[in-house]
């Protein structure tokens, strides 16, 4: 086991993810959700899958996946989640 490489990849990824989109999403989703454990599982598994793809498939990922389209879909998804919280939440205000 190459401990130097292990530590290097851990620190690089940890620092680049700290305060990044996925962590913000984890904070936002777990705050409003009744089961933070499920949010953690979903976030961790999704991130593990992307890094597995990144480590094993290498540069091929960007070639066989339409990453821009997927990002745009994700952006729309987050916008819908945000809109649901900000606009369709009148029942909470009356309480």
């Amino acid at each position, binding site marked *: 086991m190459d401990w130097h*490489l292990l530590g290097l990849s851990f620190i690089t990824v940890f620092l680049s993810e700290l305060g990044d989109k996925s962590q913000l999403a984890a904070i936002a*989703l777990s705050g*409003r959700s009744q089961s933070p454990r*499920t949010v953690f599982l979903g976030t961790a598994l999704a991130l593990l*899958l992307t890094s597995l793809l990144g480590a094993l498939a*290498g540069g091929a990922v960007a070639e066989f*996946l339409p990453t821009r389209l997927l990002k745009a879909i994700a952006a729309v998804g987050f916008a819908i989640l945000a809109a649901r919280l*900000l606009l369709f939440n009148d029942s909470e205000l009356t309480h």
Partner: protein
Amino acid sequence: MKLDSAPLSQIESQPELQDSTTVNLTTAIIEPLSPVVVDRPKKPESVAVIFCTTFVTIFLAEIGDKTQLSTLLMSAESHAPWVVFLGSGAALITTSLLGVLLGSWIAKRVSPKTVEKSAGVMLLLISVMLFWDVVISH
């Protein structure tokens, strides 16, 4: 109609009969309850829905992101993809655990209304960041 097929269909129809009675029972129970559920201020989301929303949005957002790019660069340079995956996987689990812990810690200290509003603003921010990535990478 064949005579010899009659007992077979009778046997087959027994579990179906049981099924239909249970279905009738559940609908009979659910129907008077459903107005009560509608009246509640907030419908609790099922675990499966929470998991799927989280998984799909995070997965799509992180595909082709800078973390994934640095992971693939490191694994290409070192020729040890499993070690790089182990390191980055542990880092990603740690950051998401920190995020979730922070989120639920904040949620316990401020009112639900504030949590909902700030979560909405944060998700909107993420959406803008993603759209910005899409525009920049063109």
